[in-house]
């Protein structure tokens, strides 16, 4: 359960950062697929896990960079831009893999997927490490403070001399990079690079972020809240699985939960102000 959720966890951290700056990244889901497929192909060709990791991160970062330049530099709307790159990433994943799982990933990767430390899977440790790094980036660095300020008031941030363009581009790059890592971890979890792996993740990722109480308008929320949101969702899902609720009823419950969670978070933050 923990291992399976680390893909969603890592992807959600990227989405949280993008939400905090007042944007949205719909492409996260299929960038996961694209980086998984490309990294799978690279590993099949070279039989080296290290090159696979590098490829996945590189692919994710490139998609993030494209999003960032289009949004931060050319001023395109985040929703449309990432919707378009979502389509492109999905297409690339399916074209390169011909629609089937990529064959020939090294066996060592399976061992990595089963590796655990103190009873917790290695991939979860990676997820936790990323959580901690991103919390430090967000709360302890100038970059993080700039990000929050841009999210809460873009004009004020610009007038006070913050490099809005750079911060925005870097946020999308980071979100893409995290999607790349999530893509690689999905290979080690599933044993294969599957082109459709990210398709259903978008709802879970956005759901976890808003359930934690990070708003889409930017400037309000935190990574810790998203981790809480994921915890809630995953406990719910595994609980429902345990008592034998079919997946379609789970969809209904998830939708209701996302809606009520967002509403409650909004109410609470309104009371605080």
């Amino acid at each position: 359960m923990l291992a399976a959720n680390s893909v969603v966890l890592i992807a959600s951290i990227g989405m949280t950062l993008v939400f905090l700056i007042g944007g949205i990244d719909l492409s996260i889901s299929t960038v996961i697929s694209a980086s998984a497929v490309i990294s799978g192909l690279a590993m099949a060709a070279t039989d080296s896990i290290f090159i696979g990791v590098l490829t996945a991160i590189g692919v994710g970062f490139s998609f993030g960079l494209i999003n960032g330049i289009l949004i931060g530099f050319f001023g395109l709307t985040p929703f449309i831009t990432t919707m378009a790159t979502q389509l492109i990433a999905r297409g690339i994943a399916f074209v390169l893999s011909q629609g089937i799982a990529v064959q020939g990933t090294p066996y060592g990767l399976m061992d990595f997927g089963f590796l655990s430390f103190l009873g917790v899977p290695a991939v979860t440790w990676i997820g936790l490490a990323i959580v901690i790094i991103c919390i430090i980036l967000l709360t302890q660095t100038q970059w993080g403070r700039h990000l929050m300020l841009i999210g809460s008031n873009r004009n004020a941030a610009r007038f006070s001399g913050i490099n809005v363009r750079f911060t925005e581009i870097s946020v999308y790059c980071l979100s893409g990079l995290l999607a790349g890592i999530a893509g690689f971890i999905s290979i080690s979890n599933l044993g294969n690079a599957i082109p459709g792996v990210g398709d259903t993740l978008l709802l879970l990722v956005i759901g976890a972020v808003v359930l934690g109480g990070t708003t889409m308008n930017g400037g309000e929320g935190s990574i810790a809240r998203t981790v809480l949101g994921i915890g809630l969702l995953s406990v719910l899902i595994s609980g429902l699985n345990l008592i034998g609720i079919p997946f379609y009823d789970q969809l209904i419950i998830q939708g209701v939960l996302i809606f009520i969670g967002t509403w409650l978070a909004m109410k609470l933050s309104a009371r605080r102000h």
Partner: protein
Amino acid sequence: MKSTLNSIISKQKWLPIALANMVFAALLAIVSPVFLTLSNFQSMLIQSGVTAIMAIGMTFIIITAGIDISMGAILFFCSALFAQLLQDTQSYWLAFSAAIACATLLGTINGVLVTRFKISPLITTLATYSIYRGMAIHLTGAQNIPVPREMGFLGNGKLFGLPVPIILLIVIFILGVYLLNHTRLGLYAKAIGSSARSANESNLPVTKVTVAVYAIGGMVTGISALILLARVGGLQSGIGIGIEFTVIAAVILGGTKLTGGSGTIVGSVFGAFFLVLIDNGLNLVNASPYIYDIVRGSVLLAAVAVDRLSAKRQESRLIQIKKQRLEHNHATN
């Protein structure tokens, strides 16, 4: 000459996409002799019908600065309800009216949630997307249900020599244009999209209009659902997945902005045509079906980038004119 052309384009937001359609169609006609046949045109129109009809509804929603991610789920729910009811009762009229009524109801629920709870439309409809899809699969027990062959009439049948989906598209198109440009509903929708606060302060019926546009979106999705079901020949689990993004792409290509306030129905319909034209072109060159997504995404990016660049140029020209006027005033003073 150039300035008049620019002013026409800035007023008629749908012109660029209409021109793009013509240029691309001309290109395809040169490349392939099959393209210009009547049957190819007819099949393209029928293909674009489902998206175009939904795009008309989506245009209303986007004009109010809203969005409906749940459209694909409404489409699926309606198809499921229709197929199930038809199988159980064998009554076309019951299934038909229940499906359309339900689609309108689901749209209305979206509208009520958006206005009542004031959560962003994106999150609200993302939540209802999950709920509606779950409900639909619950309803059918995750089974594929075939529909009788007579149903094909709605997908390929002809009335007065015209295919039924095209007639439906034309009727909905005319109704949509009338609603948007000649009724208070359309006017208020634009007002809400331009500034929700001003619309509220001038006592416009914001709640009613917002609920109405989502209800319209639901209703046209219901009609699209029946056409699609008739064409596919039965309920399949993949129906409607991701279609909302195609519909939004059509609306954006048509020159409507997500920020709301303005938009044209003609543009959205042309946008839907354009997407089918691209598919047709790719089909003619025997491209892999997986490439379609890449091309669609790139076209969408190119369209918004061109739009953004021309808007920037216009802005800088306006600033220049203002500067000149200021200098002129100083000189005369």
